[in-house]
């Protein structure tokens, strides 16, 4: 998928019998982790219910402001999901190097257990 997080990407509109605001994301292209991170990040504007439905994750959006526009909420959530997908990709690519940097940084500080004497108590 495109990582152009500012623009709506995946997230097809799911059908609902009621007036609920729903979006479906293909499990093959969007990690649950990214969806959950996106739901956390938009919590000031909406709460999100995530369920597995066949090959999709179906997200139901509940706006905090009753007069919030449905389309604006969908765009906002899709954009956040796309950014979180990108962040998950970056994290997966860079995790070994990240661990290496932290290991190098803290291996000679005297902070690690047994590395050196701690502060006098």
């Amino acid at each position, binding site marked *: 998928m495109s990582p152009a997080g500012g623009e709506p990407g995946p997230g097809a509109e799911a059908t609902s019998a009621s007036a609920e605001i729903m979006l479906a994301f293909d499990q093959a292209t969007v990690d649950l982790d990214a969806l959950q*991170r996106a739901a956390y990040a938009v919590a000031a504007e909406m709460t999100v219910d995530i369920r597995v439905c066949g090959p999709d994750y179906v997200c139901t959006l509940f706006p905090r402001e009753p007069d919030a526009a449905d389309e604006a909420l969908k765009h906002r959530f899709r954009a956040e999901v796309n950014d979180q997908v*990108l962040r998950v990709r970056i994290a997966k690519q860079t995790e070994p190097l990240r661990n290496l940097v932290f290991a*190098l*940084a803290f291996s000679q500080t005297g902070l690690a257990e047994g590395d050196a004497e*701690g*502060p006098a*108590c």
Partner: protein
Amino acid sequence: MLKLERAATALPAHGWQLLPLRFHRLDADSVVLTNLVGEYVFVTPDELSAVVDGTCADQELLARLRAAHLIQVPGETLPAELLAIKLRTRMRRLPDSTGLHIFVVTLRCEHTCRYCQVSRQSAAKNEFDMTEETARRALELAFRSPSPQLKIEFQGGEPLLNFPLVRWITTEANRMNKVHGKDLAFVIATNLALLDEEILDFCAQEQVHISTSLDGPQDLHNGNRRRPGQDSWQQAVEGIRRVQERLGPDRVSALMTTTEASLGRPAEIIDIYAELGLRGVFLRPVSPYGFALRGRGGANYDVGRWLEFYAVGLDRIVELNRQGMPMVEIYASIIAKKMLTNADPGYVDLTSPAGIGIGALVYNYDGDIYASDEGRMLAEMGDHTFRLGTVHDSSYADIMLSDALLNPLTESITLSAPMCATCAFEPYCGADPVFHHATMGDFTGHKALSAFCRRNMDVFTLLLRKMRDDSYFRDLLWRWAQ
């Protein structure tokens, strides 16, 4: 740089790999990428996609990314080593804790400020004064700190109402320091209403720095800071001038607190500071603690309104600099140091692990020890979460290894907190478990709902946009960072 550029020109698509990076969209056409220590590069959304996909062919951009340790050639070891050194440099304060020791020498005060965060006690009730015995035990604990620098700050109430103890502590600390050999400094946080020649002589002799409060123009200041005679502003201004004249212009600084009445007047506030020759203004929001939290402190405004105030105020300060009048916005200067250098300014609110205990300890008048001044303020409202012990029966180990300190420190570390861990601004920001405990009931807080998070995200975004768009501002921020 030439070497790097030459090297980068040889980079084919997919001929490099990402180093750990985070991003934040500044606006529709611009994204900022930051590395593990906050070094940054501006790119477009399309460039971000190409970089992550490995298809970027823009050699100039690749050179900038490589120079900022955002990408590397596979097999290179130097970038990881350099990042590790920079990361370690930023964490240097941890083994050298605790530099700031706040002595609340009395709770008495002759002011009744609207936003005061601690109890207002009559100026006559000396049962709210710290005793010499309490102060002596607090000093013994302070000198146990590994930090080679010790700053002792006298607070209240109004500390000059217990000036004999201020003098005693200073003398005793200097005596003890003959053994410890630390870089010792003293600050009195005072409203200056009680300043006299004896106190000035003492400050001159002991190299004491004065920190005072100045909320802006006379009517605004006196409306916030009430005292008999309604002359708080006159006393503060006269005191600032006396200190400048007697001790020198750099020996006095002032802090302002933004109340609702301040919001429309940032330029007036800053101009008063300029007129008094004060070189720094700290555009602070009112604290969500103590009496201010009860709605009595002019705190009835949201983050958005404070940010508008901050942006206008910052523009006014930049304009004064353009006119040849050097002035610093102190919050921006703290952030600039974190954005543009590997030094840690040690500002308690903007550090992770949090600055509580590690950066500051507070000894209350009665001997209770708190992890921060805000923790003491909460205690005045009956919440003793951040009380670490008492000078009368706690050892240094009891304090620094207490659950009351270690639990908030470990639970709030930004590198593992939801949203913070992937935030591009994490290297600039802080944990602030006291704020989140006070406003949300847990040490981490829900960052999507946190006023602390929104305020800082918006300030970081503002500063980065201005640096991107305005070369004068970029140069000014570089100067502030030094």
